[in-house]
């Protein structure tokens, strides 16, 4: 089953009826758990059964680690050990061979499906940090499994925080979903589906480097530059519309993941609009801790640039096991670092009034948006195409 397949929507109709009709809170939780397991079974690639067993063992082992952390004093030690083991497991499972071969000889053959691993990892890290820091003092089996395996965010997020998820579940207990909310949710779901199956593929057909190299001119280059980011945005935000809309139709709120990213005026602004829950996760669990630690010993601005760079490098690596995703992360880290330094420079050289005038100046705004989006779209070339295709592209550009 794929996200675009009719079976997916039959499953959603089935879930809509079941979740809507189970009035008792506890029953609803069990129904949800069952739906989550059915969803994973339908989506996961062959070999299905061993893949599900491995997935459940991984998730269960983390649940037990959390329970252990809740009962021991050496929480931080347990957390660090778990994190190291879990990161190694993640890198091996997702076949990050360019990283794992630095540490191990050879290459491990991964025969099981790793569907959903990238997002489960985030939820696990978030839970572990919050238990370690004492923000979560108890965790129930059903809450934990439903949070980690929730079918609406299982494939690609948005990354919901645990307290938000639990808060939404508790609300289901006391509030009834009205028809207006249901219709709004279903409308959004339909709009998301249209984006995924009808609009995104239109742009996808132009995201082909060979079309440009066959006829390298300025118009074709602009089409190549814009087509993949637009396809990715429509596909991913469409997916988010479907899951957010569906959840809303059964009375559940999921955080937003996109907010007009193509009007961002710098790369910092871009990441507050594009895959928002991912950038917030990296901000909260990587950038902030690194910046806090480093600023105690070094210059705060230099620390911020370094923390930004490392965060984006790791975020790039998370996107995929090929080296080009690391390059994508480095380019965005450089973009955010440059924006940060430029903002601080403006604060130093301009008075408050002049800085305000600079920010509100429409011409500067338009130029900034064009520059930012050109940079973002160029970095998506690295994200999308393997290095040999990019060499072909560069040769075609030189020839032209």
């Amino acid at each position, binding site marked *: 089953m794929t996200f675009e397949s009719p079976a997916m929507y039959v499953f959603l109709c089935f879930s809509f009826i079941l979740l809507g009709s189970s009035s008792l809170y506890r029953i609803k939780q069990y129904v949800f758990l069952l739906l989550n397991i059915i969803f994973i079974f339908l989506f996961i690639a062959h070999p299905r059964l061993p893949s599900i067993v491995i997935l459940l063992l991984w998730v269960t082992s983390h649940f037990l680690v959390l329970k252990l952390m809740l009962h021991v004093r050496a929480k931080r030690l347990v957390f660090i050990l778990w994190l190291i083991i879990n990161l190694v497991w993640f890198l091996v499972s997702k076949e990050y061979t360019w990283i794992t071969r630095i540490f191990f000889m050879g290459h491990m053959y991964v025969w099981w499906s790793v569907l959903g691993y990238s997002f489960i990892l985030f939820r696990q890290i978030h839970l572990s940090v919050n238990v370690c820091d004492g923000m979560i003092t108890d965790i129930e089996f059903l809450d934990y499994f439903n949070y980690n395996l929730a079918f609406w965010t299982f494939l690609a997020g948005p990354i919901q925080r645990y307290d938000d998820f639990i808060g939404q579940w508790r609300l289901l207990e006391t509030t009834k979903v009205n028809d207006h909310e249901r219709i709004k949710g279903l409308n959004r779901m339909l709009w998301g589906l249209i984006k995924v199956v009808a609009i995104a593929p239109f742009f996808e057909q132009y995201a082909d480097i060979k079309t440009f190299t066959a006829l390298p001119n300025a118009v074709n280059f602009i089409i190549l530059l814009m087509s993949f980011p637009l396809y990715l945005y429509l596909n991913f935000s469409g997916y988010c519309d479907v899951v957010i809309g569906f959840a809303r139709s059964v009375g559940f709120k999921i955080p937003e993941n996109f907010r007009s990213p193509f009007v961002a005026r710098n790369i910092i602004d871009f990441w507050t609009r594009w895959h928002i829950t991912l950038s917030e996760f990296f901000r909260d669990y990587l950038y902030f801790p690194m910046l*806090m630690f480093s600023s105690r010993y070094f210059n705060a*601005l230099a620390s911020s640039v370094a923390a930004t760079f490392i965060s984006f490098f790791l975020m790039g690596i998370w996107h995929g096991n090929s080296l080009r995703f690391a390059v994508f992360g480095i380019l965005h880290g450089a973009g955010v670092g440059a924006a940060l330094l430029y903002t601080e420079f403006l604060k130093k050289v301009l008075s408050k009034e002049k800085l305000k005038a600079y920010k509100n100046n429409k011409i500067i705004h338009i130029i900034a948006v064009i520059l930012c989006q050109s940079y973002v779209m160029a970095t998506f070339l690295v994200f999308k195409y393997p290095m040999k295709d990019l060499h072909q592209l560069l040769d075609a550009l030189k020839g032209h």
Partner: protein
Amino acid sequence: MDIHDVIKQLNVIFCEVFDDDSLDINETTTAGSVDQWDSFGHITMILAVERVFKIRFTTAEIAETKKPGQNVGTFVNMIQKKLGKIDV
């Protein structure tokens, strides 16, 4: 130290960190209403709070202060808990 004293001290920190002497914060003040209160400014402010109040914030607590809908009031509560003025 009661809530008003905490806000008063916080206001001094905010004026210094966000370089704006005209700031007059209260419990409902949010990041959106203070110019320059971005992620970098947030951490600069938290470090200053740690220094002045002689407390430490954890990663999860800092993440909590950046959640949508959080305001100075959330921050004040956290400071008071750490100073032992509110029973958790």
